């Protein structure tokens, strides 16, 4: 049963939405449908839900971007710190509400970090002395003082996002709203940002509302979760543990999924909490590993290197990709993952070494020739859509690759049946990504290269992507996927290649490469050891032992309800 969060009576309301309904211009259905919401002062709230459920729209009502910037039909009222967004646009609401956007690059307004932070203060006419003092405070608060003279465009994603938070806080707003601020960051950048937010909330009492898909670093930090229902943005606020008990496990962090599966009470939100419960679970010393037998080599690189000036971007990279295999390419931002993928496609001239893809050598022929053998999904796959109809996108690719396909079959393969006559840009974000995948699979290329395909994806879309890739691999396709998503790798990759400063520093099965690492380790490994990568593996092992000797596999305390969840 879903129980709505009961707020402490002492916590006064900072913002309230009353019966808000909003429909974008030309939209036929409302993005927010009769939504009411109270945000208490000093709270840290997570807004979660499937992509397209209206999270961003809901957040944008808090500072008046909706409807003042977006247009459309707006009903109800939003009042923040006593000011209604009906009478005050985002400009005036910036006194009360700081807003941080998803893309750190798109919100840089100054040529230096300190200038960027001071931007709002300058606009408000704050005297220079007061302005300098406030900028100094924010530099210290967000731990970015050493970056003060840097050009924001030269910073890492995490640093840039912290600069954006400092800029949003410059006017001392009481409410900070963040729209998926970590979706484009690597795990370390995300951790930096979320730790800073926790500090702001706990030490300064700043009220924070954050929309996010990646919950493993966030769920234990928030006071409540608002689960937004698709198509209406209604939903209720739940305490994190209640949320973990009631929501579909697929959206939860791995430790919470383990908790739900085993019936641990309370449901753990952190690795530390999960370890306490895990001490009572007895698992086999080793896990039977089922891995598909890879076929022939599709792509082979030997000693490839590339340099930019005097700096090596790639050096001595040896890599084999075989039929039916999914190889994950991991490494910090700037370690050379994207450069390697682009080099394999012939978009970067090779400094040294050799690449061969099904007998073709990239760079010696036109890249389009390689494109007919290898599909490539860039970081923004939707950027390739240009046709008037979804079906035409598939037909165009088929023509370019010199193959004949039935577009409806291709669309059905990625779950887009019946959408062939729609305009590609009228599709939702998830549908556009699946269309991009269908485009790349047209003509059955022998290999598929994917560059950060799950950035900003919700759990269902990731699951769908992996299913499509599994089908492709069963048909003999090979996949090379650059990603930071360790949990995704753990559940899908046959092999993991770790790049560091352009060199391969590890290459092997996921449990070996991810195991023992301080940074590239799954939550399940942290709880149960290197051998166990995912909650599904642990629960399967428990289930299979339960059928043989139920007394020995789990030492439960009284009242623990063991549920080897089917939801895994």
């Amino acid at each position, binding site marked *: 049963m879903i129980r709505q969060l009961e707020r402490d009576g002492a916590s006064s309301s900072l913002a309230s939405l009353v019966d808000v309904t909003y429909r974008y211009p030309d939209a036929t259905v409302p993005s927010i449908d009769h939504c009411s919401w109270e945000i208490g002062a000093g709270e840290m709230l997570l807004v979660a839900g499937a992509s397209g459920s209206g999270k961003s729209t809901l957040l944008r009502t808090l500072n008046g971007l909706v409807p003042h910037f977006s247009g459309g039909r707006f009903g109800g009222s939003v009042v923040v710190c006593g000011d209604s967004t009906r009478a005050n646009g985002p400009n005036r609401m910036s006194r009360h509400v700081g807003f941080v956007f998803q893309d750190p690059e798109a919100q840089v307004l100054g040529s230096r970090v300190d200038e960027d932070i001071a931007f709002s203060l300058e606009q408000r006419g704050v005297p220079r002395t007061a302005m300098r003092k406030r900028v100094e405070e924010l530099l210290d608060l967000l731990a970015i003082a050493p970056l003060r003279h840097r050009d924001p465009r030269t910073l890492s994603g995490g640093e840039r996002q912290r600069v954006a938070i400092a800029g949003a806080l410059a*006017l001392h707003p009481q409410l900070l709203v963040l729209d998926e601020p970590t979706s484009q960051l690597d795990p370390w950048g995300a951790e930096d940002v979320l730790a800073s937010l926790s500090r702001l909330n706990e030490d300064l009492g700043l009220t924070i509302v954050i929309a996010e898909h990646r919950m493993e670093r966030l769920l234990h930090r928030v006071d409540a979760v608002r689960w937004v229902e698709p198509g209406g943005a209604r939903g209720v606020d739940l305490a994190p543990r209640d949320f973990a008990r009631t929501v579909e496990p697929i959206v939860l962090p791995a430790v919470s999924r383990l908790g739900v599966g085993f019936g641990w009470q309370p449901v753990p939100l952190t690795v530390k909490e999960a370890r306490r419960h895990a001490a009572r679970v007895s698992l086999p010393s080793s896990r039977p590993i089922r891995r598909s037998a890879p076929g022939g080599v599709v792509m082979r690189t030997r000693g490839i290197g590339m340099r930019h000036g005097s700096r090596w971007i790639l050096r001595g990279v040896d890599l084999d990709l075989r039929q039916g295999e999914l190889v994950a390419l991991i490494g910090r931002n700037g370690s050379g993952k994207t450069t390697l993928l682009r080099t394999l496609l012939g978009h970067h001239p090779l400094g040294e070494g050799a690449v061969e893809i099904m007998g073709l050598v990239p760079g010696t022929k036109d890249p389009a020739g390689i494109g007919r053998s290898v599909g490539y999904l860039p970081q923004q796959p939707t950027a390739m859509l240009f046709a008037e109809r979804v079906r035409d996108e598939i037909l165009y690719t088929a023509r*370019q690759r*010199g193959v004949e396909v039935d577009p409806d079959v291709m669309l059905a393969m990625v779950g887009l049946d019946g959408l062939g006559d729609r305009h590609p840009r009228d599709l939702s974000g998830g549908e556009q990504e699946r269309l991009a995948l269908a485009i790349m699979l047209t003509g059955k290329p022998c290999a598929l290269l994917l560059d950060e395909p799950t950035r900003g994806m919700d759990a269902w879309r990731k699951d769908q992507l992996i299913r499509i890739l599994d089908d492709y691999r069963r048909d003999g396709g090979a996949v090379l996927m650059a990603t930071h998503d360790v949990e995704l790798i753990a559940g899908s990759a046959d092999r993991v290649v770790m790049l560091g400063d352009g060199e391969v520093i590890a290459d092997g099965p996921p449990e070996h490469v991810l195991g023992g690492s301080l940074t590239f380790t799954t939550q399940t490994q942290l709880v149960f050891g290197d051998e166990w990568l995912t909650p599904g593996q642990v629960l399967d092992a428990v289930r299979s032992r339960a059928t043989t000797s139920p007394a020995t596999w789990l030492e439960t305390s009284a009242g623990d309800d063991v549920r080897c969840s089917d939801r895994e």
Partner: protein
Amino acid sequence: MDDHDGLDSRTWLLWGAAASVPLITGRHPVLLAELLLIVLAVRSVCTPPERRAGWGWLVRLGALAVPIGVLFNMFTVHAGDTRLFRVSDDLPLFGGTVTLNAAVYGLLSGLTVVALVAIGTTVAALIDWSALMRLVPPRAASIAVAGSVAWAFLPQLSTSWREIREAQTARGHRWRGARDAIPLIVPLMAGGLDRSVTMAEALEARGFGGTAPAGRRSAWPPAALGAALTMAVVGIYLFAVGRSLGAAGAILVAGVVALVGVRGGGPTAGIRSTRYRETVWTRADWLVCGGALTALVATVVTLQLQPEALRYEPYPSLDWPVTSPLLVLLLALLMVPAVVAPTGPAGRHT
């Protein structure tokens, strides 16, 4: 402390204008060569290393613009006394006598395009857009928003272009004709607009433009800005047709009207913005501005008194261009930045 040591952005804008005007006015080969050398020297000496784009693209632009200019002019302009060969009159537009005069004019046109692009990209690499945006008065906030959106649109186009081209290549896209541009152009425009909207949202959300009380805005400042824009267009037209004094007058009026429009005080004014760092007008800025203004005035005066020293016409006969040594000397003052500000981007601040 890594503060920039370059010139103020306004100085670079004036320098860019002074270097562009002689090129826009006419195709004088001596002045073209001089300005091309000056801009390449300033570009290589003043642009900070992290903003240097290399020379390859400029060479490629020249390799494209010059032959196009020469061929287009040769086959469409059939005037001049130095005949090369004849194309059958049966060919519409292209038929007629092909002359060396037309080829020379085409060559000068191609090189002018290269020089103007070099000036534009040099100024773009050296100015500090955010510092310029801060100089915009609150009344012109909407103009600055539009400018910043446009500015955000431009630099990301090249990155987007590369990404889209690679993604389409992976679909098997190849260049076979003009229709093959559609898969590149449509996503480029759509993605650029998306990013620009995000930038505009960020500006609004961070209180850009101050908080002039609602309902107290006067309608006349936008009208004044519209009038200023009209006068500026008239001035550019007069300049293009050689009425340089009339052009100078129109542009002066445009400037005054625009200033009154954006500075208009009284009860309708918004909050006066402050500056985090005060820009410092240095001796180097004075020197560069002095040189640029001198070059600009020399150009306008020469256009009025001796237009043939700026405008070279290879028709009807291919003569050696009339050159004003004084103008050549005064335009050389555009080299001052290379002497007084050899490194660093714009925006010297306290």
